[in-house]
């Protein structure tokens, strides 16, 4: 019986030859993770279970990235709960401030997530790791607490939707634009409970950064996971990073899908998603009337070195518009250092931008760039819900790093092509 990559990974982790959509299974987990918002509740639930310790001290990752460096006393108390739990149970992968990064960029880069894994994380963007050919999905704190004890969890095997991206990617169009366009086509619940498998020649053309961006936002279409078959680029990434052996799974050519969506990429332009849902996707050329107060470049969606290189390429020799605050947030310490070495940080600062230590910060309206009433931001982040970056009457427009950089220069939403 032919199967998709998602089915094969779930079957392998539940001791089965095959699994079918709709089946409820128990699957062994290769890694479980939580952050400073979700882990404290997970720890409280874990303690109710009465387990002596975690299932494997090397397979629990705790990343204080959301409100860190601690933004207030209450946040500091939450991080302290994580830190003390990590010490008590000798958790290897607790990432202290100074070594920390935005979790979904940090864990693959650290080689803690590898192809073929099954992973749950108490963060909805855990689906990011599908770019490596892993099954990964977000859960809440109680599921994490129980998985920390058991090393396994229950899943309903999802139905699968295949997205085929064909045609050559135009200039300035990347993974962010493909996923925003896709969400615009199918809606924020267009893949509810389903697996989103991304394939086609345009995906092959994307670098790993662009692939992580796409899988990261599967949840914004309601997807359970986003996934891509590993290719040479995946293997090259895993070869240098992976700290464990890994397994490559691929979908059978005659695997069954609930739906197949084909997208011609050759005529796309950069996409901007308007408030207050990621599905409100429009071409950048139809968005240039929107003035902005802030531009944020970073997050688990677009805070990788490749994203910073694109933004710096646009900003080099230019100045941020006097009405705009530009905030650039490298996603990890490694990326932060690389940005300095390559001279990108200098370009951002010379342009009049603020460069922050790694944090989720403004993406969820936590700190490091919160919006006032009536203010508008363009951001390379993943959500533009009401109040997401601050005041309930502020607005967030989602875009790729080149558009966010060009908009910072012109003070309104702009294509980098306008900066001639």
């Amino acid at each position, binding site marked *: 019986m032919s199967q998709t990559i998602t089915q094969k990974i779930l079957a392998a982790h539940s001791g089965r030859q095959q699994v079918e959509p709709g089946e*409820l299974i128990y699957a062994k987990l290769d890694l479980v993770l939580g952050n400073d*918002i*979700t882990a*404290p*509740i997970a720890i*409280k*639930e874990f303690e*109710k*279970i*009465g*387990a002596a310790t975690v299932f494997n001290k090397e397979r629990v990752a705790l990343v204080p990235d*959301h*409100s860190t460096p601690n*933004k*207030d006393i*209450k*946040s500091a108390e*939450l991080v302290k709960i994580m830190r003390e739990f990590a010490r008590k149970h000798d958790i290897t992968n607790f990432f202290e401030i100074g070594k920390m990064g935005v979790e979904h960029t940090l864990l693959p880069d650290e080689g803690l997530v590898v192809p073929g894994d099954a992973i749950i994380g*108490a*963060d*909805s963007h*855990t689906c990011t790791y599908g770019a490596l050919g892993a099954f990964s999905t*977000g*859960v*809440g*704190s*109680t*599921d994490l*607490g*129980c998985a920390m*004890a*058991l090393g396994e969890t*229950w899943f*309903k095997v999802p139905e699968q939707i295949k997205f085929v991206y064909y045609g050559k990617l135009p200039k300035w169009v990347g993974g962010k634009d493909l996923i925003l366009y896709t969400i615009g086509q199918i809606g*924020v*619940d267009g893949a*509810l*409970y389903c697996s989103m498998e991304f394939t086609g020649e345009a995906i092959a053309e994307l670098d790993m950064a662009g692939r992580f961006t796409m899988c990261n936002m599967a*949840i914004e279409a*309601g997807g*359970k996971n986003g996934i891509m078959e590993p290719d040479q680029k995946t293997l090259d990434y895993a070869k240098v990073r992976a700290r464990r052996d890994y397994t490559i799974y691929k979908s059978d050519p005659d695997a069954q899908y609930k739906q197949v969506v084909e997208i011609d990429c050759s005529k796309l332009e950069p996409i901007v998603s308007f408030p207050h*849902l990621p599905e409100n996707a429009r071409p950048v050329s139809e968005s240039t009337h929107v003035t902005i107060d802030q531009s944020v470049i970073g997050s688990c969606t677009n805070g990788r070195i490749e994203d910073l290189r694109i933004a710096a390429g646009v900003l080099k020799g230019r100045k941020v518009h006097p009405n705009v605050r530009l905030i650039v947030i490298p996603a990890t310490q490694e990326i932060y250092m690389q940005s300095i070495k390559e001279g990108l940080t200098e370009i951002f600062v010379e342009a009049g931008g603020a460069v922050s230590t790694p944090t989720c910060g403004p993406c*969820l*309206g*936590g700190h490091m760039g*919160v919006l006032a009433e009536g203010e508008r931001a363009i951001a390379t982040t993943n*959500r533009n*819900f*009401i*109040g*997401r970056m*601050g005041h*309930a009457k502020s607005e967030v427009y989602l875009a790729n790093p080149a558009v966010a950089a060009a908009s910072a220069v012109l003070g309104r939403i702009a294509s980098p092509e306008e900066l001639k």
Partner: protein
Amino acid sequence: MIKGKVHKYGDNVDTDVIIPARYLNTTDPRELASHCMEDIDADFITNVSQGDIIVAEDNFGCGSSREHAPIAIKAAGVALVIANTFARIFYRNSLNIGLPILECPEAVAGTSAGDDLEVDLAAGRISNLTTGDTWQAKPFPAFMQNLIEVGGLINYTKSRLAQRT
């Protein structure tokens, strides 16, 4: 039997509006409840009474995985959420923390804000006392019914751990 007044919302009520991230520096249910829904319905927390029911359309609870969202709704006094569909992480979290949820598009269509509903949770029967209509909600799959019957995921995990030793 649950009996309460309806608070009605539309599609895609996300977890950021259920409980904005600026309040996620606490895990205290009562403090979370005091900000529940405030970005889309500033009066919710003053209008809601113990035992009330939230009725919403598609994809309720989409977005972030924050368990604080169902915790805030439950601590605000809400006894049940009825929607056309739920986002999957919210669905799972609600089961795990013991916030009752039902999927029933017919009841959503036939209910207005302020109506009084009476719900037999075990049977999935929803009666609108204001209009006199009655509907049947989708039953939970057997696995989840079992999870509810044993008292939630924590108890289930305890017994699974005990089986190992």
